[in-house]
Each structure stands twice: as C-alpha cells, then as structure tokens.
C-alpha cells in the first residue's frame, strides 16, 4: 500500500487508486461531480482539483484533477493547506479539537490560500452560472449533491451578470421527469445510460454551454435501468416522476432497509414513506449484489402498495355470496372455528395450505407447520415446480459457484442458455454488461492504464469484448454485446448446452457454434453459465449444470472466490466455474429449499374431496394452475381462506380473506437466486386491518390450538424455528440482529433527525403529538430518535452524513470506495459449492416434435408486464402495454401482418392442454428460433398459454388496433380541451397533487 501525503497528513492508500478515491476512502471530503465510484473517471467537471507537489520543499505545486491522478508512493498533495510540507502536528491537533465534523474541518482557516481550493471555488461558481435558483421547488432539494458540494466549497456570492441559458424539457415517459435547465453537464447520465447500461436513446447533444442531455425527440426512455438516472444525476435534471406526483422531501421520508420483491435477484432497496404512502424507492448499496443500481421494476414497481385495490380489512363471505369487512380478531375466530371443527372430528387430512414464492420464508414456514408438511403445497405451478426444484437440487450438489453479481462481473466468458436476462433478472443483466468489459480491462492492463480511466479504457478497447454466447428462443436485450447468438427452440437449447458440455470434455460437435462456445468457455479463467426457469424446461437447466460441471472436470475443486486479480496459475480450464440461475420470484429459491418437488398444487387438488379448509398464502392461483383446475377447486365446497395484498379474481371464490401487509409494512426473510437470505423490515406501520402474513398465521395457529406454534411470540422466533428446521437454513439466525439489538443503547431511527414535520402531521385534527407506533419486532423505531451509525449494515435505514445529504453520503458508510459496507455484509449465503459435487446427467432426448403447420409457443418476458404485482402500478401498467405475440419477419410476411396487427392463435389440444383460441397483437422480432412464436408471459390475457404448446396461426381480420399512446403534451391538451369557456379546474397545478391526508388508523 503506497503512502501519500494530503495536507501534510500521511495516508496509507490502496494501490492503483486515484487521489479522489484515496481521499474519500480516508474520510477526507473532496468535492466531485463527474466521477462515479462504479463508472470511473473522465475528468470533465474539474471539481476534484488538488495541488500536487514534487516534494516537501516544493512550495508551488501544480493543479491536478484528483480523479485523474493515480496515487504513487510518497506523492504529496494539498486540498486546503496550500503547501506540500508536513503539517505542524501540534497546530493541526489544536485546530481539529475545535471541530467535530469532517465538514467543519474544511473551513479551518489556513495561512496560505490553497490554489486547489481556489480553483474548486471557481469551478463551482462556473457551474452555478446557469443553474436555476429553484431549489425550493426542485425535487432534488435536500438531497442534492450540487447543493452539498456548493456548501462544501463555500461559494456564496454571484458575480456573473448575464442571462442564464435555458433548455426545452422532454417527455421521457411515466417514470422520469426532465428539467434540463438544472443541468451542470457532468455527463454522468449519458455515461450511465449509454456506456454502463447499454442504452441507445439518451445522449449528449449540441456543444459549448448548450450541451443537452436527452433523446432525439420526446418519448419513453427505452432502457430498463432508466430510473438510475435519478440517483446518478447530481442535481435535479432527472427526477422520480411518480414521486413528484406525491412529493416529499428526503428528510421527511420514513425508510427502512428492505429487499426488492420484483424478481429473485434480491436487490437491496430503501423504500421511503410519508403519510402512509410509499413515496419512492432508492438503491441500498450492497457491494456483492446490486451495488449502486436497480432496475426500473424494482424502483418503480411498488406503486401497487398505495393502490386502491389493496385489501384493507379482512372479509368473510355471507350466504348471499357477498363479502363483508370484519375485524381481524373476528376473522381469526371464524377461521379457527372452521379449522377446529375439523380437528375435533379427528380428521387431520382436511386442512391444507398453499404457500407462495412471493411470501417470506417465515410465512411459508408457519403455514407449512400449521397444516403439516404432508398437507402443504409450495405454491408453484406444476412445471415451475419441476424446474425450480431441479435448480435447487443442482445448486445443492454442484461444485460450481453460484455467484453474486459482483462475482459475475469478473466473468471473462459467459454462456446464456434460454434466458433474456434483462427481462428475467434485470440487475444480473446489468452485471453481465460489465462482465464483457473484462477484455477491455485486460487490454488496459497491458497498456498500463488504470481501470478507472473510463474514457481511455473504452477508447482503447472499442468493440472488443469478452465472449458472451447467447442461446435463446428469441432475441434478447443483451444481443448487442454478444459475441455469438443462436436461436433455438427450448428443447434444442438443452441439446446445445449438452453438446457444449461434451465439447468441453473433448468430444467436438458437428456444429461449429457449439465448438466455438466451448472453446470460449474453456479458454476463460472465470467462465460463467447463466440459465434459469423462464422456459419452464428442466432439461435446459440440466444442460447448464452439465456445462459448468464439464468446465470443472479437469481442475481441482476449490472454493476460492473469483476476484478482480486474475489467477496466477495458467491452467486455462478454470477452477472458478460459475453457474447462475434466473428465477421468477423473490422467494422462489427459498420456497424450493423449504418444500419438496412433489408438493405441487395439482397433487393437493387431486385429493380435493378429502379437503375441508384450504389456506392460500399470498398466491393468485390463476397464475399457477389452469382455469379448469380453478373451477374444480371453487366448485368443490372447500372452504378457502386466502391471505392477500391486492384484490384479484380468485378472491371472489374465497370464503375468508385476510388482508396481508406488503413487504413495505412487514418483516421477512427472502432467499435470492444467489442463495442469499436477506431480511426486509417494515418501512411504515400497517394501516387499517392489514397484518403481516406471519402475524395472521401465528394468530391462526394460536386460535386453532396449535400447540407448538402457539409458543412462538416474536417474528425472530419464527426465523429461529425455521432455521432449526433444516440444515440449509442454519445461517438464517445470522442474517440480521434480533429485535433486542440496540445501537448506542437506542433503537435505530427510521426517520432523519430533520423529520420534524412528523410531529405536526395531524395538527389539523389534533394539536397533540400522536403517539408513535411501537415496533416490538425489530431493532428499528418509527421515530427520529437514535443514531443511524455503527449498526450492522443490514439495519441501515437511510444514508446521511453531515454535509452529505444526497445519496453520495453512501461513501461514509462504506469501508472504502466501492468496498463493503462498514457494518459488515448484508445477507447470508445458504448454499456454497460442494467439494464433492455430483456430476450432472448429460442425457437428454427432446420429446416434442413440431407438426407441420403449427408453431411452438415459447414465453417471452417483460420487465414491465410479466410480474404479477408490479404491473398493478399505474406507471408500470402504462409501460407494459398490451399482451402480444412475437413472430419473425418471415412469418409476418407469410401471415400478411405488420406490427400491431392481430393474430389468431389456435392451441392444438394435447396432454394437459385443451384446444383454445385467442387473438393477440403482433410484435415482429429480428431473431426467433425456427418453428417458434413467442407470447408475452405473465400478462393476464396470456395466462392460458403454455410454453411448449403447439398453435396454428392466422391473421385476425376483426382485430382492432390499439390507439397510439399519447405523449404528455398531447394528453394535457386533451385534458384541457375546453368543455365550456370557464377556466378548467384541471389547469390548477396543485390539483391532483397529494397534499397529504393523515394516515388512516
């Protein structure tokens, strides 16, 4: 570790870092804008200027940019002292004694004006020339990096007398608001959107002091990661549009550490709440999982929590078939009566439960214990169950590493089998985009360039990327960075995978593409195979395991973690073979580990005549089983008790509905596709009669006289019991401290110390300060009292540090720039590679042969649209659009259809599939496997379509095209179309803005 001197202070710094990183890692405040910890340096803003000195005697020094200057042994810099000499230690201590915060130490007067400091002031004054003074009405205000840096540098008085430049703003879709006048031209948005996330529709335009960041014309941003612009932008150019509609300042948001439930990746999030409404979601840094970025489903897909369709009260169906809302206690009594009666009759067969991959491990565990293991179905659909349990089995036995995203980013060759990762595990796809850059880093290393020299490394490598082979049924969003794409039907993808495995083992294939893929993986140091459940085809999953296995075959097993430094040994077949699976829901893997493959819903329903009470945990069965099965169930006379968040069709057939809390109002543990168990905490107390599912089930257990479960009092005890139930779950206890944990003797506050408005929220009703809600289940409090510091990282409710109000304050919580959090890792990995792994079978014979004149249906997934809950958010529903059938241009020509036309789909009857007809809108793809057509999976109108089914297609002559979407400006002109000559109340800009109703308690 080199030693450098900053303002005379000796610092041990990380080899190869730049001066800015070194300073920030050492806790020294140096302002910056364009540098981003994970996007590196370009040197455009010039804000991190420091003075570099030749030696201790050099009194002049020269200005260099901190982010562009590598550290070297003995290098001397000054930020504020104006000298490269060693500081007078006594003096420094005296001065430092007066100041308690790092922020204040910046203002310590120095005898010599530091020219670096003067230059930084000049830069901020320049940046403020054209920046509007609209902080009071700006959504970024209070968490604005520009505000923080302006204060830090100390710019106050304006000398520029000219006019400010103005720009026209663009409509960028329902998620992102655009206010270009606030831009300080740091280029971060373009660098994230284009360079980092591979977007093509946002760029820097024009030049000089009129550089413009936007699209070529108004329109919805195409990237699945556009929401990160909100956090990447250091000021208020790109802001969270749904937040703007119901705005609250950061300091008034109540927040808690949480886990995204949008997919199985398990990104760490910080949801913010006010007035009982979830306002927005920010990224919560986890160096191993999501780093600094989220996908748009994760960031914007939780609006359903505020939906009018949320179930606020329990309800029971009366004799007329109508629901009436009842008190929670009453509902429990009714349920217990039903359940007890059965037990009284000594008929233990009669109560069964269906769990859910979108409910917490604890809730699933409780339900399983409540009904008994043999009466519990995991809640997967039949084929889903098969694939996901297969994946779980592979992960439990393989020698390959199931990598975190951070580890995936080190992969130097990637094989993707059957997944459009961007749509099934979006954050993983963003990681894979970085993995292909390893070639560039390798070239940079040869050229002696630091990897953080972002522009230089990109210019050096240009289009050279590490190999990525994508084998899929349809085009994927990663095709643009793939070295090779192969379009195959699902069963052929599996064959391809097995052939690659054999080729790696030394049996070349006749197919050149197979050999090419095998060679790329074999030559890699850290190959990665990505597959998943999206095709609902377990042979694909097996083939992926076979490839990972083959890569390990010749090497000695090791559990060493892949790191940034390439392995020193020169064996090409790597010891670091990685195998990752994309899974559909936030707790798919957790539920698979908790249950057995045969515990399927169908199997349970086969015994319908023996069932009296069915408890369904947060599971909309119409997405899991066929309509016939649903009908059979609802007409069977079984009493159905459903725990659910949002109203859905199935609930109409349930006898008792218990209003479940969402993830933002409850606690739970989820197991991500990496096998990482992570805890989420309630962000705000449950309103109405909503309760966490585990709470309902615990009450139910107590009321129905379940002796063992009745002993459980706290959530922590459920986790503990769950952990004790299975060796794999043993680490659960270490996921997060229990509810007795205190930091500095106090609970950890969910509110910032500035959240003084909280006490006045209900002042219009009563001037008495409302009693704050207690939280006996977690170490967090619904309060602003306490200290958000020094606690384990899994309990960090928000990022804030003195002088750092924006999300950039994160660096104060990191052990070093880009490093792990100071409070230790978040989550516990449940499954590690086995030293004596079981070899995966390489035998597979495809079953289905396509009949002439028919097409094989394959599912295609959408970030916005395929997920059950997020699509109940207005913005996401708008982006999801209508369900579609995706076909090749050849087929389109044959059917004489173009994009947006209707196609009639006739399902060919087969085993388990009835003949069926429906029409869908057409989307033409550039790449579709032969004999395949794809349908948008997870949309309510395509639930009847099964992957692998055969269909006949024809043009639907009666199809009505959807009306083209209006963009915002059109909408407003429609909305304000005068009905009469009086001014429309719609034009009142304050109307429709949520002015904050008191929470309904």
């Amino acid at each position: 570790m080199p030693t450098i001197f900053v303002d005379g202070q000796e610092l041990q710094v990380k080899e190869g870092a730049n001066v800015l990183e070194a300073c920030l890692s050492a806790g020294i405040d140096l302002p910056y804008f364009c540098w981003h910890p994970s996007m590196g340096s370009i040197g455009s803003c010039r804000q991190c200027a420091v003075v570099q000195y030749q030696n201790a005697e050099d009194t002049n020094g020269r200005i260099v940019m901190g982010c562009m200057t590598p550290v070297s042994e003995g290098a001397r810099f000054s930020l504020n002292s104006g000298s490269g000499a060693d500081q007078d230690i006594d003096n420094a201590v005296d001065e430092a004694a007066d100041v308690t915060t790092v922020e204040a130490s910046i203002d310590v007067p120095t005898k010599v004006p530091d020219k670096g400091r003067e230059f930084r002031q000049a830069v901020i004054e320049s940046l403020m020339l054209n920046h509007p003074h609209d902080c009071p009405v700006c959504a970024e205000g209070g968490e604005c990096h520009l505000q923080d840096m302006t204060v830090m540098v100390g710019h106050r008085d304006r000398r520029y007398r000219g006019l400010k430049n103005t720009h026209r703003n663009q409509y960028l879709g329902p998620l992102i608001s655009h206010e270009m006048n606030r831009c300080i031209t740091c280029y971060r948005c373009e660098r994230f959107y284009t360079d980092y996330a591979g977007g093509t529709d946002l760029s820097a335009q024009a030049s000089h002091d009129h550089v413009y960041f936007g699209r070529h014309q108004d329109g919805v941003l195409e990237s699945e990661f556009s929401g990160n612009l909100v956090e990447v932008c250091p000021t208020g150019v790109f802001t969270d549009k749904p937040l703007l509609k119901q705005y609250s300042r950061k300091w008034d948001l109540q927040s808690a550490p949480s886990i995204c439930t949008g997919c199985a990746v398990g990104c760490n999030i910080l949801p913010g709440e006010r007035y009982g409404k979830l306002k927005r979601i920010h990224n919560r840094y986890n160096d191993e999982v999501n780093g600094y970025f989220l996908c748009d489903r994760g960031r914007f897909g939780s609006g359903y929590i505020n939906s009018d369709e949320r179930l606020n009260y329990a309800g029971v169906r009366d004799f007329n078939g109508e629901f009436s809302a009842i008190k929670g206690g009453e509902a429990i009594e009714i349920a217990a009566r039903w359940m007890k009666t059965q037990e009284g009759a000594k008929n233990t067969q009669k109560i069964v439960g269906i769990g859910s991959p979108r409910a917490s491990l604890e809730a699933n565990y409780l339900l399983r214990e409540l009904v008994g293991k043999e009466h519990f179905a995991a809640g997967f659909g039949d084929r889903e169950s098969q694939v996901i349990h297969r994946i779980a089995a592979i992960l439990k036995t393989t020698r390959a590493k199931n990598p975190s995203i951070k580890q995936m980013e080190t992969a130097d060759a990637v094989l993707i089998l059957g997944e459009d990762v961007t749509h099934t595990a979006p954050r993983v796809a963003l990681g894979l985009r970085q993995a292909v850059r390893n070639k560039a880093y390798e070239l940079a290393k040869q050229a002696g360039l630091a990897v953080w020299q972002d522009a230089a490394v990109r210019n050096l490598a240009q289009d050279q990327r590490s190999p990525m082979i994508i084998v899929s049924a349809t085009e994927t969003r990663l095709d643009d960075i793939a070295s090779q794409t192969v379009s195959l039907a699902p069963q052929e993808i599996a064959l391809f995978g097995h052939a690659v495995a054999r080729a790696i083992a030394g049996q070349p294939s006749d197919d050149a593409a197979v050999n090419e893929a095998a060679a790329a993986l074999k030559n890699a140091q850290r190959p990665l195979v990505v597959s998943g459940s999206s095709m609902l085809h377990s042979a694909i999953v097996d083939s992926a395991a076979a490839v990972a296995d083959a890569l390990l075959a010749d090497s000695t097993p090791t559990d060493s973690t892949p790191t940034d430094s390439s392995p020193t040994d020169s064996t090409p077949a790597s010891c670091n073979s990685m195998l990752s699976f994309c899974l559909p829901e936030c707790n798919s893997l957790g539920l698979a580990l908790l249950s057995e493959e045969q515990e399927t819903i169908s199997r349970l329903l086969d015994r319908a005549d023996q069932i009296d009470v069915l408890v369904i945990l947060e599971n909309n069965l119409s997405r899991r089983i066929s309509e016939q099965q649903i009908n059979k169930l609802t007409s069977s006379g079984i009493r159905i008790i459903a725990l659910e968040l949002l109203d859905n069709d199935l609930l109409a057939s349930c006898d008792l509905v218990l209003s479940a809390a969402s993830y933002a109002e409850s606690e739970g543990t989820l197991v991500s596709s990496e096998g990482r168990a992570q805890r989420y905490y309630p962000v705000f107390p449950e309103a109405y009669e909503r309760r966490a599912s585990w709470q309902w089930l615990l009450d139910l257990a107590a009321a129905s006289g379940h002796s063992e479960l009745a002993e459980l009092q706290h959530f922590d005890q459920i986790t503990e019991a769950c952990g004790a139930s299975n060796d794999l779950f043993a680490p659960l206890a270490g996921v997060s401290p229990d509810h007795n944990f205190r930091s500095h003797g106090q609970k950890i506050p969910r509110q910032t110390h500035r959240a003084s408005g909280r006490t006045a929220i209900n002042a219009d009703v009563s001037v008495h300060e409302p009693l704050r809600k207690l939280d006996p289940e977690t170490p967090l409090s619904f309060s602003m009292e306490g200290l958000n510091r020094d606690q384990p990282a899994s309990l960090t409710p928000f990022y804030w540090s003195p002088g750092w109000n924006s999300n950039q304050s994160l660096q104060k919580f990191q052990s070093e720039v880009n490093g792990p959090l100071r409070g230790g890792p978040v989550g516990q990995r449940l499954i590690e590679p086995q030293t004596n792994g079981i070899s995966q079978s390489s035998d597979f014979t495809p079953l289905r042969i396509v009949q002439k004149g028919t097409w094989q249906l394959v599912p295609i997934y959408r970030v916005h649209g395929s997920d059950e809950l997020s699509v109940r958010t207005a913005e996401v529903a708008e982006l999801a659009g209508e369900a579609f059938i995706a076909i090749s241009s050849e087929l389109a020509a044959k059917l004489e259809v173009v994009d947006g036309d209707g196609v009639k789909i006739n399902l060919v009857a087969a085993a388990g599939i009835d003949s069926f007809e429906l029409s869908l809108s057409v989307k033409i793809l550039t790449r579709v496997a032969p004999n395949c057509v794809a349908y948008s999976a997870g949309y309510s109108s395509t639930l009847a379509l099964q992957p692998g089914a055969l269909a006949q297609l024809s043009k639907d002559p009666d199809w009505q095209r959807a009306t083209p979407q209006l963009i915002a400006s059109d909408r407003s002109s429609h909305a304000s179309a005068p009905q009469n000559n009086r001014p429309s109340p719609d034009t009142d800009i304050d109307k429709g803005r949520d002015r904050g109703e008191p929470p309904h308690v």
Partner: protein
Amino acid sequence: MEKVLTRNIGPEQTPTDLKAYEANGGYQGLRKALRELSPKDCQTVISDSNLRGRGGAGFPTGMKWSFVPMGDSCTPGHKYLVCNADEMEPGAFKDRLLMECDPHQLIEGMILAAYTIGADVSYVFIRGEYVVAIERLRGALAECYASGLLGENILGSGFSLEMHVHPSAGRYICGEETALINALEGKRANPRAKPPFPQVSGLWGRPTIVNNVETLCNIPHIIDRGADWYKTLGRGEDSGTKMFGVSGRVKNPGCWELPMGTPIREILEVYAGGMQDGLQLRGFLPGGGSTDFLVPEHLDLAMDYNVIGKAGSRMGTGTLIILDDQTCPVGMVLNLIRFFAHESCGFCTPCREGLPWTRQVLQDIEDGRGQLEDLETLAYQVKYIGAMGNTHCALAPGAMEPLQSALKYFRDDFDRHISGGCCPYESHKVHQHQHQQIGTGA
C-alpha cells in the same frame, strides 16, 4: 531564397497534377525511401532534421513518430496516419494554399509518414468548407491509386497504404488531435484525456499519428535531400522554411513561404507591405487567434518557436493578425472570445462556463456597461481558465492568451471603456446611429 513547399505554387501557376508534380521532382523522396531507407532510417532523418510540428504546438515530429510501437512491440492490427487538415485557427489559411495548389506534395508526405510508422490506413481529416481542396485531393488520390502510388504493394515495395479524404462536419475543436480522432470515429468531437497518447492508443484504440498539413508537406523534401540540407534553410535556431501569413489592415495581406527565423518586421514590412496609410501598428497576434499579443517593440524578433516563446507568446501557426490603432482591442478580444466560447466542446467546466462568462464581461465593457471590478473578474478568469492542466485540453488556455496579453498591453483601453461608459473607438458610430434614429422619426 529557395522555395521548397511552394515550388509548384505561384500566382501564375496552375495546381499541379501527378504529371506536373513528378516533372518537378515529385515522388522522388518516396521512391528513394522505398528503395533505400528502412522506416527506422526515415524516422532518424526526420529527427535529425529538427522538423517541428507546424500545427501550432511545435512538437518535434521525429520524436512524435518515435513513440509509435514498431515491430514486435506492437500488437497485431492496423496503425493509422491522420493528416490534420481541419484548418480553423482564426487568421490561418496556409494549409489551404498547400492543399489546393499542390495536393500531391501532401500525399507524398503522408505516404512517407505512413511508411515510417508502419501505418496501413491514412486519412486526410479536412475542414468541410475547403471544397476546392477536397475536390483536388480526391482527384490526386485517384491519380495515385491509378499509378500504383497508393493501394496494395506501392511501387512494388511491398508496402501498402489506403488513403481516404474525410471532410469534417465542422468544429474548431477537431483541430485538437484527440478530438479529431473522436470525430473520425463518429463520436462527439471531445478531446480525450492523455495519457494514453494517440501514438499508442488513438484511432479505434490503435497507434495513430496526427500531423498537420504543412508538417507532412516538408517530409518528401527532407527525405529526398537530407536533414543537413533542411537545417541550412532556417535563418535562426529552427530549421526549414515556414508558411507565414499576415491578415489585418496591412497593404498586402497574404501568405508566403519564408525561412524559419525571418524577423517579424521583414514579414510585415517587406512582404505584407506595411500598415495601410494613416494607420499605426498597435500590436499583433504572431501565430493566430489563440496566441498572446506582441507589440511594436517585438518587431525585430525572429519567427522561431523559442524566440517568440521567450517574448511571452507562441509562434502557433505562424499567421500574424495585425491590430491597428483605429481598431478597438477590447472589441478584437471580444470577437475572439466569442469564437472560442462558441467552439468549446462543452466537456470541461472551466472552458464551457468560463469562456461564456468572459464573453459576457467583455461584451458589457465593450457596450459601455462595464464596471471597475470587471477587470478583476477578467484577471480571475485568465488565472483559472488560462492555466494549462486546469482544463481538459488546450482550447481554453489558448483562448485566454489574447485576453491576458491585452490586459497587459492595452489596459488603458479597458479603463477608457469602463470610465467613459462606451467604446471610445466607436463613439462616432454611436452618434451616427442615434442621428439616424432621430432622422427617421422612429
């Protein structure tokens, strides 16, 4: 004096075609090099000749070429030679003359340069407005391809080179070599951070040399006649000849090839014919719009890189812009700053924001709205935008050079603008303007 670069150029001469060029000794340097000299020999000759880049920075050409990885030290792939023909420096028009009148001289220089560094692809990145030069270069290229001087296996030597003419979409910053490379790649013309230097990682990440037109035009003659001969051409410490130009209110503005080290007075009085009648010399920018003002006391200095450098300016492109005593220095500086502010690529803050701010202050002073503290602001701008290293590239420091020297030499003029509340040079115009308004009854 012997004409070297302009031996085929004169008021009565027509532009040369291949035949005319070869008839006057053209492509002899190339033939000699391909026959007798290794790339290393060529690089040594150019280094020995002490040729310095004619684009403005004056970097030794041989040394620049020596940074290109050769042989085994270079990873397999293309290497590129790029001719910077994006002549946009205010006051400069020398490259245009060379390209329009003798395109083959440039092409021969480029082939030799490419041979020396082992480049297999070359580009002429030319200012889009130079339509005549583009047309003539393309014609000359066609002749070369037809006669085996370009393409595969040039003159049977085994050396192959492709050459393309690429007209610029038009930004001043494309004259900065790394911005030029970005533009050539189809990207925004923002300069790149250095290191890495283009010699190692340039166009499409490959080793690339970017040379000015005039620099390349010197190459055939040096190769043909040797470094020693070339060194004798200069009158002072620098070798060779140089295209000098004069613009402004002189009797005979123009462009001439003269020996390096020719005194400024000789260029101004002998070749440009001195000031127009009734005008006095106030000062001059010795090397184009981004160089510091010099004043009459510097007239006897030799036009050599180091001599002009010691006097506090730069020789730049060697094209002088003359300021006379009836033209407002503040207005002249404003005009230049306006140009540079507009041509800033917008990448780094001091240039993007600082130049428009400077422009605003100068505009206020010029329009009579100046305030006393404005001079402090200008000095502040010079200090923080003008220092090399404070900005991403050399555009802003160059832009501040006329201002910084104007504040030194013409401080009185700034003071008179501020104290008088108007531009003293245009007071009669202001009166005229008011008179017209009254006259029209508006």
